[in-house]
């Protein structure tokens, strides 16, 4: 769409130190667009949780953020192992994170639930062995 702004990010695999870069960059853009505090906060949390999920579970992936006058659409796409039971994954506290990730304080099972709480809609498409695409929308 011609009146939207599109940001694209690549999330590297297994690099916890870089998780948050896409979120930071998106936040900086949203501030330049003059969006309200609550919108920025919600987008930041969705982005950061999404990035962390990609690092922990999915060997990285691609994030596309489309900012339009009426909504912000974040598409987080990975080619990781896929989610066998999406309903279970959405439950607070459910996690399949590795011991290493848990040692770092991640894997509390709050990622997807937190994203859902902050987004106006959250859609997950996942095929085991193929990958997962999470589409989160924050309406303006």
């Amino acid at each position, binding site marked *: 769409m011609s009146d939207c702004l599109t940001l694209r990010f690549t999330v590297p695999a297994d690099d916890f130190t870089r998780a948050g870069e896409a979120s930071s960059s998106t936040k900086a*853009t949203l*501030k330049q667009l003059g969006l309200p505090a609550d919108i920025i906060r919600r987008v930041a949390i969705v982005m950061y949780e999404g990035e962390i999920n990609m690092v922990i579970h999915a060997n990285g992936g691609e994030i596309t953020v489309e900012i339009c006058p009426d909504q912000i659409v974040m598409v987080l796409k990975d080619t990781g192992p896929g989610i066998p039971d999406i309903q279970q994954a959405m439950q607070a506290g459910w996690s399949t994170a590795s011991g290493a990730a848990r040692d770092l304080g991640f894997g509390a099972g709050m990622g997807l639930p937190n994203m859902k709480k902050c987004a106006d809609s959250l859609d997950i498409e996942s095929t085991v062995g193929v990958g997962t695409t999470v589409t989160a929308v924050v309406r303006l």
Partner: protein
Amino acid sequence: MEKFFHSVYLDDSLCRGCTNCIKRCPTHAIRVIDGKARITSEFCIDCGECVRTCGYHAKKLHRDTLDILKDYEYTVALPAPSLYLQFNNLDDVNIVLTGLLELGFDDVYEVAAAAELVSAATRTYVAEHKEAWPLISTACPCVMRLIRVRFPGLVAHLLPLKPPVEVAAEIARRRAVERTGLAPDQIGVIFISPCPAKVTYARDPLGVEKSQLDGVLAIQDVYPLLLGAMKRVRDLPRALAGAGRVGVSWGISGGESLGMGSQRYLAADGIENVIRVLEGLEDDRFTGLEFIELDACSGGCVGGVLNVEDPFAARAKLRQLRLRLPAVPTSPPREAPADLSWDAPVRYEPVFRLGSSLSESITMARQVEELTQQFPGLDCGCCGAPSCQALAEDIVRGLASKNLCIYVLRDHIHALSDTCAQLAADAAAQEGDPSQERLRELAGRLEQLDQEITRMDVGHRPAVPPAGEPGSQKGERET
């Protein structure tokens, strides 16, 4: 009063137009224009990084001088906790306080004593406002200004209590009125400050409608005189000190948290670290915290640019001095205000917004993205902006032009000289005399080439001719 007053200003005669300050400024507030570093007022948060980094000492700081004592019938000095940490082998704070009287002040009131009141109020507020956890300390004015312009989502987490210096000023004025019977405006309440942001605060406070501070002196200005005065009173200091370990510890990073009585806090210092923590807080990355103490200066207030002593040496001195201070804070003075709450709300100021509406801003952000791609990504600063993206933003805001980038300019010049060479070759290949038309075109191109090269020679960012309105340089400080 102007909306964004700042303590920092540029001495044009000393500024060499180098790129050191523009690169270090955490809010990208500085541009080199016409060979001089100009500050965009809306973006500046008074952190003092440019003052620290300028090797030519061209960044200066407004502050008052001791002459201010003549403006009042009765004056009270408010020494910052960090003042005590500037002296070698100080074993009695009373020597510093009596020294201040010797300099001409009529009374002193320790900011460290007010800090203990703020610590107590903070404990109560934090305990009663779980919904706002983690609460972010508002003692550092620079951090507050940073949050106000750059972290909108965190404004609601700001601890809405007056900083110790403001509480100290209120107490000092009330006490002076009671003791002297003078009118409040005949009393001068003067802060002895490590911090340029407090100079800004006194004129343009955040969280309070009007500050009770009448003036701000720099520790480094008072220091030499105070050293002499302290020598004179060393053997007979008056008993003026009241603050304990917690209050004086506010001078270093982690000191304020010490007064929290809880271990669920995070303390960070140094502007880069502060920004990283704020980014993390914005993303909800940290869990289980009640309180966040942030100091823009490395080491805390002892790192303020108006100090004399090295911040790490000052911290070492605090360890020694602390042994001589009472562990239990003194009880609040009669004059202490019952409520330390802000009386003016702090709101987000979207100064980084590109356009006046969302769709205009989106269009401009796309232009910024396209332009940024055309620059080399070296962030060399030669254009006068701190990064290629910052130049692109300036261009889109109508404050700069593309040819300020020496790489873009170089490509222009190459293309032009290629055209000249081609024209010359064509002219030479013509039978007989070359046509006048060809020669004129060649001459024109050569002149253009010369102009572009001249612009490179100047080696600085000229004020921008295009993009119309004279108002396009808005926000830049007059010096």
